[in-house]
C-alpha cells in the first residue's frame, strides 16, 4: 500500500496547489462582457496589441454613448501568445469569466484550437486577422466570423496580377515557414501552377529571424525569376528585399496583407519602393477609419499597427449584432451578423453564411514615395 503513497502525494499536491491559488469567481455587475484574445506578449505581440487598443477605443465610445442594450460593455483581455495550447487555456478562462462574445484570436492556429471551446459554450467569435481559409470554408467552425478576407481570395488576386499585369513568366515563391506565410504561399503556388502562362521556379521557406538572407537571395537570382511572391510578415520581407536591392536584382516583389502595414514602409524605407502588395481595400478615405486612426494617434502618439482597423470594425460589428439581436444569445447574434449591415472603418459590411465578410475585399497596391498606392 505504501508504495502508492508517493503517487498519491503527487496528485494531492497538484490539487492543493491549484486550490490555494484559485481566485474566487467574481460575479460582476450586469455588463456585456467582450473577451479579447490574441498575442499580447512574445514575438507576435505586435499583431495582437493593436486589436486590444481598437477594442478599447470602440468600447469607450459605445459606453460613453450609453452602451449596448443599455448595458455597459466590459473588456476581458487575455493573452494567448499565438500558441494553440495556450489559446485553449485562454479560451476556457474567457468562458469561465462569463464573456458573452469574443474578439479574436489573432493567429489562425490559436483560433482553430480555441474555437471548439467557444462553440461548446455557445459563444460567437470574430477575428480581425485569422485568414486561414478553412476557418470559414471547412464549415468546422460555425461560430467563427472575421472582418478580413481569407488567404485564398488574396492569393488568387495576387497571382492574377503578377501574371497578367506584370507579365511575369517565372515566379519564385518564398515564405517564412509559418502558419500564415506558408499557407498564403502554398495557395499562391496552386494558382500559379493552374495558370499555363507562368511557372513556379522556386518554392522555399526561409528561416524567419535569420541573421542573413544572402544565400536565399542568391538562389532567387539564379532562378531568374521575374517576380517573387512572398508569404509572410514584413520583418523578414524587408530584409530580403534589402538584400535583393543590394544585388541590384530587378524582379518584382509581391507580398500579401502581411506587408500591407505602414510599418513595412517605414522599416524598409527606400527599399520598399516599388514593392507590390495585396491588401484589404483602401479605407484611408473612410471617415470612421480616419477617426479610428486619430484616436490612436492621440492616445499613443503613433500609428496603430497591424489589423487595427479590422479589429475596430470587428468590435463595431459584433457589438452592433448584439444590439440588433437584442441579446447575446448565440443564434440571434449569428443571425444579426449575417443580416444586418454595419458601418465600419472597412465600409458597410455584413457576413456570409460561412462567416466571411461581405463588402471586404482585396486590392493591389504598390509602394510609391513611401505610400501604398491603390492600383487600377
Amino acid at each position, binding site marked *: 500500500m505504501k508504495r502508492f503513497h508517493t503517487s498519491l502525494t503527487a496528485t494531492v499536491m497538484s490539487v492543493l496547489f491549484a486550490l490555494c491559488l484559485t481566485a474566487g469567481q467574481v460575479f460582476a455587475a450586469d455588463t456585456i462582457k467582450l473577451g479579447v484574445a490574441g498575442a499580447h*506578449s512574445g*514575438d507576435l*505581440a*505586435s499583431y495582437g*496589441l493593436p486589436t486590444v487598443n481598437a477594442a478599447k477605443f470602440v468600447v469607450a465610445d459605445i459606453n460613453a454613448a450609453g452602451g449596448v442594450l443599455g448595458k455597459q460593455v466590459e473588456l476581458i483581455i487575455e493573452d494567448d501568445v499565438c500558441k494553440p495550447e495556450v489559446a485553449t487555456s485562454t479560451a476556457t478562462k474567457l468562458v469561465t469569466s462569463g464573456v458573452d462574445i469574443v474578439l479574436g484570436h489573432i493567429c489562425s492556429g490559436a483560433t482553430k484550437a480555441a474555437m471548439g471551446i467557444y462553440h461548446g459554450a455557445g459563444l460567437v467569435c470574430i477575428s480581425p486577422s485569422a485568414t486561414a481559409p478553412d476557418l470559414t470554408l471547412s464549415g468546422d467552425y460555425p461560430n467563427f466570423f472575421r472582418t478580413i478576407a481569407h488567404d485564398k481570395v488574396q492569393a488568387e488576386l495576387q497571382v492574377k496580377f503578377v501574371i497578367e499585369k506584370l507579365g511575369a513568366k517565372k515566379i519564385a515563391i518564398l515564405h517564412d*515557414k509559418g502558419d500564415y506565410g506558408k499557407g498564403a504561399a502554398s495557395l499562391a503556388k496552386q494558382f500559379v501552377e493552374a495558370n499555363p502562362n507562368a511557372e513556379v521556379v522556386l518554392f*522555399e*521557406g*526561409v*528561416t524567419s*529571424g*535569420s*541573421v*542573413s538572407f*544572402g*544565400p*536565399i*537571395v*542568391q*538562389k532567387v*537570382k*539564379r532562378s531568374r525569376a521575374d517576380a517573387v511572391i512572398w508569404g509572410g510578415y*514584413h*520583418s523578414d520581407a*524587408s*530584409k530580403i528585399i*534589402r538584400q535583393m536591392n*543590394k*544585388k*541590384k536584382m530587378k524582379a518584382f516583389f509581391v507580398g500579401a496583407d502581411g506587408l500591407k502595414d505602414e*510599418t513595412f514602409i*517605414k*522599416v*524598409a*524605407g527606400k*527599399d520598399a519602393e516599388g514593392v507590390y502588395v495585396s491588401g484589404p481595400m483602401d479605407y484611408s478615405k473612410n471617415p470612421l477609419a480616419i477617426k479610428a486612426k486619430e484616436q490612436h494617434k492621440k492616445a499613443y502618439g503613433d500609428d496603430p*499597427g497591424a489589423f487595427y482597423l479590422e479589429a475596430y470594425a470587428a468590435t463595431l460589428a459584433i457589438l452592433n449584432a448584439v444590439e440588433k439581436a437584442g441579446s447575446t444569445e448565440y443564434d440571434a447574434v449569428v443571425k444579426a451578423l449575417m443580416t444586418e449591415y454595419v458601418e465600419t472603418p472597412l465600409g458597410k459590411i455584413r457576413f456570409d453564411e460561412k462567416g466571411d465578410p461581405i463588402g471586404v475585399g482585396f486590392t493591389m497596391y504598390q509602394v510609391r514615395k513611401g505610400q501604398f498606392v491603390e492600383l487600377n
Partner: protein
Amino acid sequence: MELEYFFELFLGGLVKGSIYALIALGYTMVYGVVELINFAHGEIYMLGAYTALIVASVLTVLGFPQLAIVVMAGLAAIIWASAYGYTVEKVAYKPLRKAPRLSPLISAIGMSIFLQNYVLLAQTDKFLPFPELIPEFEFWEPYSHIIGSPSLMILVSTVIIMMLLTYIIKYTTMGKAMRATAQDRTMAMLVGISVNKVISFTFVIGSSLAAVGGVLVASQMGQINFYIGFMAGIKAFTAAVLGGIGSIPGAVLGGLVLGMTESLATGYISSDYEDVFAFALLVLILIFRPAGLLGRNTTQKV
C-alpha cells in the same frame, strides 16, 4: 555561371558565418572561463543594438554629424552592453557559483526571458528601422554587388576581433589569468588572482563583442526588435560548440562552418531544411570529434 554561383554562395556563407562567429566569440569566452552556457548572451546582443539605435536617434535629433553618430552609437552600445553583461553576471550567476551545474543554466534562461520582456515593455513590440550606420563606402562601389560594405565590415571586424582576442588571451596578464581561472578557480585565488574581477572582465569583453555584433548586424539588416537575440544566440551557441566550446579560433571556425553549411544547403538543396542541415552537421562533427572541431579532446583522467 556555376562557379560564380558557388562563389556567391560561398561569400554569403562567409558573411553569415562571420556574424555567427562574432556572437559565438562572446559565448565561447564566457564558457571557457566560467563553464556556463550564458543563454542571455543573445539578449545582450539585442540590448547592444537597441542602445545604439536609441543613442543614434537622439544624436540625429540633436543634429550631430553622421560620423560622430556612428562612433558614439557604437561606443554606447559597447558600454551599455558591457554594463548589462556585468550586471547579469553579478545578479544571476555570481550567487550560483557553488550551485549544482544546471542551476545557472536555468537562471540564464530566466534572465533571457526577463531581458526580452524588459525591452518589450520599456520600448516597443514593433520592429524598428535601424539606421544604416555603415554607409556604402565609395571606394568599394565597384565590388559592392559582390559583397556590400556592411558585410565587408562584418568580415573584417570578425577577423580583427579574433586576432585581438587571441592576443589578449595568449599574451596579456589578464588573458593568462583568465585561462588560469578557467582551469582551476581555487588555485587561481591562491596565486592572488581576483577571480571575481577576471569573471567580470570576461563578461564585459564577451558582452562588448555581442554589442559589436548587434550593431553590425542590425545595421546590415536595417531593423531590430526585442526578439532578435534569441535566434542569433542559439545559432552562435551552436557555432561555439561546433568549433569546440572555449576555443577562440574554434568559435570563428565553427561560425564559418555553420554559415557555410547553411548557405550551401540553401543554394544547392533547399532552405526549407537549412537548420536541419546545420544541426545534422553538428551532430556528425561531434560524433567524430566529440569536443568540437578545435576543442581539446581531453582523455578523462582515471
